[in-house]
């Protein structure tokens, strides 16, 4: 199903009616699983991801290659961040089973683990493991970005100290690699259909800074396009951070109102309505 990009230039609207710089609806919840130390549920458009964080805790028996790597039990006395990604068979249109040893999934795990390990204060928990398990319920593009965002939220919920949110988002360009037209617009937050047809990249930044933690591009694109795509991606990440931050604050406010937590120091200025 080739995507008809010719219509874009007429109304400057994308297939799902968004403008070039619009995110899809991001909906997130935290503390969804009572049994876990931290958990989250995140939707970016139709991409739906669930995340459960356990730890930091003593490392259990080692499970071969299941861990995403990261600290490896902790050289230099840091916690290991073990990530496992499970892609549900019903998550995409064609029901394809992915084995445990699927290289793409392993690469996703390593990426998330390394990205979070750089932001989490793992040195506070030597000889321990932070295990993050992610479940993909539905896929509609920007999978890696959604996984990173969900994992960040769950780590916030688990109360693991971190420098800042690691937020991610995708960016693309309306030109194919062959076309060298100067009028090509960068696009923000691609869905599955756009991801198939257009060059795209995933950016993750550290909070509202311009510092890029993850940059993954898997399609062919003119090097001159990179700057535009990266700029749009980074600004998208800043928007995502705002949204995620709001989710965390709302949940905190809600919990204070319910009385599940004491209103402590530093929360004074937060208005409770």
């Amino acid at each position, binding site marked *: 199903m080739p995507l008809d990009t010719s219509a874009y230039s007429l109304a400057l609207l994308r297939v799902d009616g968004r403008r070039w710089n619009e995110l899809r609806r991001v909906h997130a919840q935290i503390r969804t699983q009572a049994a876990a130390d931290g958990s989250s549920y995140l939707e970016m458009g139709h991409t739906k991801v669930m995340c459960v964080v356990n730890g930091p805790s003593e490392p259990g028996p080692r499970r071969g290659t299941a861990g995403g790597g990261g600290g490896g039990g902790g050289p230099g006395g840091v916690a290991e961040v073990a990530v496992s990604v499970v892609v549900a068979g019903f998550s995409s249109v064609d029901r394809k089973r992915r084995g445990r040893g699927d*290289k793409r999934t392993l690469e996703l795990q*390593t990426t998330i*683990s390394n990205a979070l390990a750089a932001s989490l204060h793992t040195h506070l928990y030597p000889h321990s493991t932070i295990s993050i398990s992610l479940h993909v319920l539905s896929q509609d593009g920007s999978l890696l970005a959604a996984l990173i965002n969900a994992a960040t939220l769950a780590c916030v919920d688990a109360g693991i100290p971190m420098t800042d949110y690691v937020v991610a988002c995708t960016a693309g360009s309306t030109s194919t690699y062959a076309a060298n037209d100067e009028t090509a617009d960068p696009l923000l937050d691609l869905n599955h259909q756009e991801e198939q047809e257009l060059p795209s990249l995933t950016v993750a930044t550290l909070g509202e800074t311009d510092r890029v933690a993850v940059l993954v591009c898997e399609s062919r694109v003119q*090097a001159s396009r990179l700057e535009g795509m990266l700029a749009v991606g980074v600004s998208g990440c800043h928007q995502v951070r705002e949204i995620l931050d709001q989710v965390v604050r709302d949940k905190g406010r809600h919990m204070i109102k319910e009385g599940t937590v004491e209103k402590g120091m530093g929360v004074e200025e937060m208005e409770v309505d």
Partner: protein
Amino acid sequence: MPREAEPSLNERQFVLKALEENLRLDGRTFDKYRALALTFGDEYGVADVTLGRTRVLAKTSAEVTVPYADRPLDGIFTITTELSPMASPAFEINRPTETEILLSRLLEKTVRRSGAMDTESLCLVAGQKCWSVRVDVHVLSHDGNLTDAACFAVVAALRHFRKPDTSMEGGVLTVYTPAEREPVPLSWLHSPFCITWCFFGDEGQMALLDATWSEEQVRVGSCTISLNRHGEICQIAKLGGTPVEAVALLQCTNVALTKAKEFSTYLDKKLAEDAKRRDKDGLMAELSAENDR
């Protein structure tokens, strides 16, 4: 499995201290590669690449098989990587380490997914017969920057490779031996090269090209950019690690482009030299003239 050897505290501190003074242990500047050498084997499709003390051998082979049911018009093209205990005792056969998985994914994305080879040209009879081209990457010695060396070896091996000529007559497929007909090169579209940057320092402010193994052990992050000489990015992989300024990444891409062009020129030169060596007595021209008749 023996654990990967880790550098001592003294080494870690010293490498970083030296980098802060703009010094590398082997006296290179930050954006300089070690000596790159490429030798082709006697057979077609064998490339041996050494980059300093890193050595990678790539071997291409082709056979006629049945195409995948969901892609009847495409040939099969696979790249397999093997990190054996020969490269480092920390690697084990049949149990891929993280390094190996990332390396094979990177090669896959750089060479296969970027459409460097025209897989449709490998099709012989739609849905029934096609060529299966396979590249085996063997790491013989590991002293850092495997990806760049491996990618260069794969591209060189594929461009050097010649597959047997075939013909279809009345529904009968004939594969000719090299004696009957001169083998033909693969239909090659563009040559991508991997350029890996390693980042050092608390904020990843120092960027190095072609890190050695001891430098790789103290890096805080890395970014592999694959480009071809036309300035097309085929793949970027900065898989986590310490966040780096976006502007710095753009600069890295620009430098990577010039390096990719250098690689491309070097490979072209080597291929031309090799063709000349094989064509010493003008024998090739004679053979091909025979084929034309």
